[in-house]
């Protein structure tokens, strides 16, 4: 935040910038929505609803891919705030590991989905308007037997890490009360007051 330089408190100084916060929360919403659409759609019978949900699931996945690329660039060129001082080493290690896997999965999950749908012969047309290229050849067996289970497994791993991430954020906020959550919280009252 621009105001971070003028504010003396630790929480404000170490807050994430507006771009990082917007990317974090838009990706959070998109990933959670894509996950639950994915869970719902696979059990639906052949119906327009099933087709629509599949479309939305794919389009959201592509959006996640694009936004994650933007986010990675932003992170690489900017300076994410440092971890609070006095954080135990194991927590720092866990933080680094989960975020490394997070960023990997932000790309791997949508790319596996894209590869899967290309392989089975239903290429992605983003928002029903922009045809995306197939980066794997049509091979229904490869899609159904390899890429689909991999896409699913990677999605569940991502979901598990989201649970760990949210759990850790709550622990920091409600147990440690170290203001960590506030750094990423868009409308936290104490943030502007700090």
């Amino acid at each position, binding site marked *: 935040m621009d105001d971070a330089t003028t504010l003396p408190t630790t929480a404000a100084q170490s807050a994430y910038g507006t771009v990082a916060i917007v990317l974090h929360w838009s990706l959070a919403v998109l990933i959670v929505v894509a996950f639950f659409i994915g869970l719902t759609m696979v059990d639906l019978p*052949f119906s327009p609803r099933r087709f*629509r949900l599949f479309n939305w699931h794919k389009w959201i996945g592509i959006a996640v891919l694009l936004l994650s690329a933007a986010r990675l660039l932003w992170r690489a060129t900017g300076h994410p705030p440092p971890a609070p001082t006095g954080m135990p080493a194991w927590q720092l290690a866990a933080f680094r590991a989960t975020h490394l896997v997070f960023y990997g999965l932000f790309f791997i999950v949508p790319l596996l989905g894209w590869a899967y749908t290309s392989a089975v012969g239903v290429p992605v047309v983003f928002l029903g308007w922009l045809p995306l290229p197939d980066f794997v050849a049509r091979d229904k067996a490869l899609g159904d037997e390899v890429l689909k289970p991999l896409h699913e497994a990677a999605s569940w791993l991502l979901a598990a890490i989201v649970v760990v991430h949210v759990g850790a954020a709550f622990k920091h906020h409600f147990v440690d009360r170290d203001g960590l959550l506030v750094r990423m919280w868009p409308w936290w009252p104490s943030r502007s007051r700090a």
Partner: protein
Amino acid sequence: MTLRVRSLAFLLAPWLVAFAAGAQPAAPTQLVPAQSEITFQVKQSGVPIDGRFRKFEAQLALDPKAPQGGSVTISVDTASATVGFAESDAELPRPSWFDSAKFPRAVFRSSAITGLGGGRFQAAGKLDLKGNPRDLVVPVTIVQIGAQSTASGEFVVRRLDFKIGEKEWADLSLVANDVRVRFKLVFTGLGPL
């Protein structure tokens, strides 16, 4: 002697008749199904979905040098439609789509064939699909290699003209109205171009 003349006449008679009728080819024009294909493409929210019919028949009576007297009938087994996905294929013969139980065949019957030169023809006729007869003009190009003649072409039909995809499936934002049909029909026994 009499016997000999009569048997000779008997042997020659079909040829003489054929000659008198304008030297029609001895073998009738026959479709070679294994080398022929009828495919279709429809867009689902912009995504091209390719399908084909596995079973169809064709009767062609055409003298390529005098096409105006010719005729063609193509009969497609609607239950043989496949788009390559088991659950979609199971759906296609149902009442909302082809309703194959009630309308097992889609038939195109020409009423006039016009020669355009260079192996190109135009077959005007009616396509009767799911009990909805509609006028259709089909461009055809015939290429001959050896004894085989390959008639190919493509045309676009609007699925809702034939009530293919009814009720909740009538939504064109999900499944587009235009269906591009491509065919490649291989025949033997067709006269020279």
